[in-house]
């Protein structure tokens, strides 16, 4: 009963922190003005601890939620869905993923995939963006986002993973 309550509290905390990080986007957690990829940080521990179908549903819900805070038709859902399946399968085969480096690397991979997906979607949706100016800027954003997420994820994701393991 107590464990169940702790789990609920953890989920509530995750939801609140996700909302706060997405809306506030604190300046001290930015690199070159680019904030970490929060959906990746939160989806990673959840996917590692749950079955693929659960992770996939969570990724779609998370994607819908994050998309509500962004403009234009580009969506997080396709990349998050793919990542949730990959991480979930990986989590089933590797039961003890608690290494900070491991989490960081997975977050880097996930952020790169999310970034690439947004980049491709934007190119498909807006013909006018098929030029070098946009591509060079996209590479810059992608690298910055990957670096900051890779730095932040080992702390946040590992903490969530560790807390859920304890429960």
């Amino acid at each position, binding site marked *: 009963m107590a464990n169940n309550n702790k789990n609920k509290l953890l989920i509530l905390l995750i939801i609140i922190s996700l909302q706060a990080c997405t809306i506030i*986007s604190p300046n001290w957690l930015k690199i070159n*003005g*680019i*904030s970490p990829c929060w959906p990746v940080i939160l989806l990673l521990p959840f996917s590692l601890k749950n079955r693929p179908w659960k992770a996939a549903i969570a990724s779609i819900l998370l994607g819908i939620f994050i998309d509500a805070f962004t403009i234009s038709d*580009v969506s997080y859902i396709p990349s998050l869905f793919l990542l949730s399946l990959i991480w979930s399968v990986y989590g089933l085969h590797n039961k003890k993923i608690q290494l900070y480096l491991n989490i960081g690397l997975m977050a880097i991979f996930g952020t790169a995939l999310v970034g690439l997906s947004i980049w491709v979607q934007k190119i498909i949706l807006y013909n006018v963006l098929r030029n070098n100016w946009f591509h060079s*800027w996209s590479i810059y*954003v992608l690298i910055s986002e990957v670096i900051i997420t890779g730095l932040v994820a080992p702390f946040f994701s590992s903490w969530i993973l560790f807390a859920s393991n304890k429960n």
Partner: protein
Amino acid sequence: MIKARGKIGFYLLLKSRFWVIFLFGALLFGIRWTKGAGYLDLYSILLKPILPGTAQREWIKEGENIERNIRLKLLEDDNSRLRRALSLKEFNSDQRISAAVISRSSRNWWQQLEINKGSKDGVLKGDTVIGPGGLIGLVDSTTPLTARVRLLTDPGHQIGAWIDRTKHHGILTGMGTNRPKLIFLNKNILVKTGDAVTTSPASTLLPPNLTIGIVQFVNEKALPSPYAIVQLTASPEAIDWVQILKNNGQ
């Protein structure tokens, strides 16, 4: 004997006030020659502590500003009268709402601002948002208490722009960087670096003559149409307060 007379003559010269008169004369000559420069310099040095200083400068500046504001008001009135005569859209500066930026994402995949005024204050989708320096973006969506502003730099965001010097239209397209791309509609554009980019005076979607930026680079040989890179005059990264032009200032 002759030596003694000479000595006596020299003695008399010193003894009499010849040198005093000579020096006085030289001084007068010097004053005349320099047109009283020494006197005037001395006068200015003596006067310095009691001269009106920065306060006077501020008064003058304030006066100049008031004069400029009056002239600007007259020109605006004149402009709106002429626009009315030509049946063009008018720009009403009284329809402005000030709003604070509560969240900023100006360098990410999505370049947007969240401001603390929404539909409850009369903000509508498509309203123009300006900051110190000029146009920042357009309202993308509203909630009762907040509004989301899509910045001009957001990739794929397009608005009509105008170069006043050459009277050429173009489409300002966000590229993600701080410098959007102005794609021209004609071939022979004659645009130069440093030209001011504004909203079109004949625009029906945006308020007329709003400053957007300055042309920084021009590629006249680009295909299918020439383009220019524009440096925005308003920097969304540094702006904490913005103004929304209600109904686009009409």
